[in-house]
């Protein structure tokens, strides 16, 4: 028997886990930059704080669990979690909320279950959902620079004043109002915003306004376009498959077309708004595709996408929450193991599904004589 023991298939895979994670980060980076451009420094500050906390918490959890810290941190998965979390939370929430959220994500949603690969739920979304339930008000308010809402206010989104304003919001009491933070206002994103009635991108286009001007209300759309392109990049690079994003987008589009009526668009939203006016793209391409918590076979992935897409639409239109990505993804996570179990591919050479009585191995292998 010893003859077959030491065989080691050469592992020359094009991808390493850490590379995969880095590619995901790379693909999301343009969208993060555009968010910063439109919404100010809050986005970057959130990212920094979340990454620092996530790394520190992961390292301490690994220390407590007596795992090789460097080896596990090197897979960069915690960086992706922190990034997705930070990009989902609104700018302008205090640091301790970010710490709580990342703590929930890294410690409770991931490490408690045994670390990378073992977590049944998407950690970033678990953290987000936790914050959303605990602080519903703060989590749906977007503190952005006044310049975003009113271009004539005289404040610059990327100016020093708004930077200090964001810093003040992040670390309350850090800078004792020596700076003027009046330049920051609160705006709720998505459906309540002016986007609701009419596509801002289209109207800006037809009115001849500069699409990249901050006041043109096109921020969300550009961000979504960036996520879409980033996602397509990941698909082309074969890091994710098309199944989950496409089925989510098609489902959302399908439902919004089905329920669309011009008089009601303020309530149910337009298809365009559903796809480009909110977090749909990051959800479809970056969050729902998290391989650990998603199903692994392609048919199961399609069903998973349909469930998430329907859930997104349903919660948005008939639920009380404005954006439903986190709820939908966590809901999908609940069903992922079941989908994986039920929608298995037919095994080579077996007539029906593998659930039909498995051949006892010992018997099978003795009959299996002729291997040429």
């Amino acid at each position, binding site marked *: 028997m010893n003859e077959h023991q030491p*065989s*080691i298939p050469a592992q020359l895979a094009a991808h390493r886990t850490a590379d*995969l994670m880095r590619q995901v980060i790379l693909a999301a980076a343009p969208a993060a930059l555009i968010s910063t451009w439109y919404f100010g420094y809050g986005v970057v500050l959130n990212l920094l704080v979340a990454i620092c906390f996530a790394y520190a918490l992961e390292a301490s959890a690994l220390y407590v669990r007596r795992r090789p810290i460097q080896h596990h941190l090197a897979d960069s998965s915690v960086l992706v979690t922190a990034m997705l979390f930070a990009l989902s939370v609104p700018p302008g929430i205090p640091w301790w909320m970010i710490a709580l959220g990342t703590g929930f994500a890294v410690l409770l949603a991931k490490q408690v279950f045994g670390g990378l690969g073992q977590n049944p739920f998407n950690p970033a979304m678990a953290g987000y959902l936790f914050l959303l339930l605990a602080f519903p008000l703060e989590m749906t308010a977007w503190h952005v620079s006044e310049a975003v809402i009113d271009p004539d206010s005289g404040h610059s989104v990327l100016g020093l004043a708004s930077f200090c304003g964001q810093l003040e919001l992040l670390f309350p009491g850090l800078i004792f109002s020596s700076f003027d933070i009046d330049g920051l206002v609160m705006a709720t994103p998505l459906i309540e915003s002016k986007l609701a009635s009419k596509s801002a991108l289209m109207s800006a286009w037809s009115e001849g306004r500069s699409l990249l001007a901050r006041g043109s209300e096109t921020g969300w759309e550009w961000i979504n376009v960036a996520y879409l392109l980033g996602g397509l990049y990941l698909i082309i690079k074969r890091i994710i498959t098309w199944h989950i994003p496409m089925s989510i987008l098609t489902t959302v589009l399908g439902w919004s077309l089905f329920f669309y009526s011009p008089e009601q668009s303020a309530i149910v939203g337009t298809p365009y708004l559903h796809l480009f006016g909110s977090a749909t793209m990051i959800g479809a391409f970056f969050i729902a595709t998290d391989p650990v918590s*998603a199903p692994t076979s392609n048919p199961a992935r399609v069903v998973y996408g349909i469930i998430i897409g329907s859930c997104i639409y349903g919660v948005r239109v008939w639920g009380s929450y404005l954006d439903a990505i986190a709820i939908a993804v966590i809901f999908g996570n609940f069903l992922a193991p079941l989908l994986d179990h039920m929608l298995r591919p037919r095994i080579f050479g077996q007539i029906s599904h593998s659930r039909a009585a498995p051949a006892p191995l010992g018997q099978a292998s003795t009959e299996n004589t002729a291997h040429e």
Partner: protein
Amino acid sequence: MLSQAVRWLTEGRLASFSGGIRPPKQTQRTLRSRVMATPIPERLIMPLTIYRKQERLTPAVRIGEAVRKYQCLATHLQDPDLILHAPTSGMITAITRDVLEIQSDGLDQALILCGNTTEKITQADILQSIGRAGIVGQGGAGYPTVKKIRLAASAGVKVLIVNAAECEPFVCCDEALIREFADQVVKGAEYLMQASAADAGVIAIESDKHEAIAAIQEPLKASSLTLRLLAAKYPAGDERILIKSLTGQEIPDSANPAERGILVQNAGTAKAVFDAVKLGQPSISRIVTVAGAPLKTPKNFSALLGTPVSDLLSWCGFEHEGHSEEPSAHLQHTDHLKIIVGGPLTGRRADMFCESVQQTTTCVIATDKINFPASGPEHACIRCGFCAEACPVRLLPQQLLLHSRNFDEHNLNSHGLHSCIECGACAYVCPSKIPLVQHFRQSKEILRDSAAERSESQLRQARYRHWQTRQGRTARRQVKQAAEPERETPFSRENARSEIAEAVARVKEKKSGKRQ
């Protein structure tokens, strides 16, 4: 089913299968030189175990005995088809449980062969020649060819497939073989067809082996075989995958392809069959690819069986410590240098001094750091599903891994662990560098052991129950005899019948009573 299979075969499409991987071929450098016959090595190591070490041969010679080329060295006690011949003349220097060593004298004195020169060669002739030559399948496990043919012929074989698809990187012995011995391969394949009484014959080559394809066109014209091109994917050359690609039939792991009317033989086997039938030559050599970056001139050898791997390597311009002037200079170099026997995906690490060429040896690879990085630390499975995409038999390796780690027997079975062909495609693509195949092999072994144990314990239980009933019967009879000794009647059929009838009547009574 079969007509469908035949239609698939005759359509000239590129045959393919789902899943699989496309590793870089890396055969160019090796194929630059033609197949070279090796010099006669000083020492030949002939293994006495064959077919995955399941069968053991008994030596027919003694230590110190002089042998001549083609002389019979060892046979199987029960099975005359398993036989080993001397590849060259020399003296037997050692016989252990597993190997037999020959010190060659360099003279290559041969016994006189009698080939078959008659016009009409019958099926029985061919089978006899193959059996006498001791040919075993050159592609995989080394199952005796003549047995495989007999099995297939008795099941009514329809199609013979000659497998010339070597899909692993570095391996190119079949490509070189067909490039240079195409007519012999085709002739051998025809003999195989005749021997197995197959209706159709197909030679399957991967579509990127242009030289081999070009070389085989001519001999094919005069034969009844057809050429089918395969998509250049790994593992196109696996028996079941090959059948699936060519005929669309999926043969489960519990069935033998021969039962479905399909016989697969390796191209190298076909050549050996030609030699055996036409020249009467026993199987004493085969074509071996010797490749790898550390070699100056990698090439394909027509190597005598028993040639030590270290000799092959040094003929290719590779110097190991033993032959080097300054051993220390090479020690560092050889630190990470490993020898792989077989392809990089299904082969195994081997010691170059103990290992020798056998009929199943396709390739010897000297590894380098770039193509064979040290298996780094394994990361957690991120369930990316790359492995499932690569799996040619549509398993879910990530689930199998999970169940292997937990050793969940039920789920391992229901996820089809027994269907895993151990091709290594999943491990190849895994970004977390998880040695999936090792896990699967281990689990398979444990499952097999536990199945064996279970059947044994079932047997024991059955025996015990049997013993108990017998005890009971004897006891009852003794009691009976003690009570009424005068009614002792010898056992007879009539008695037994009436007793049984009485018993049945009693049971019936009881039953009807119960119902009321």
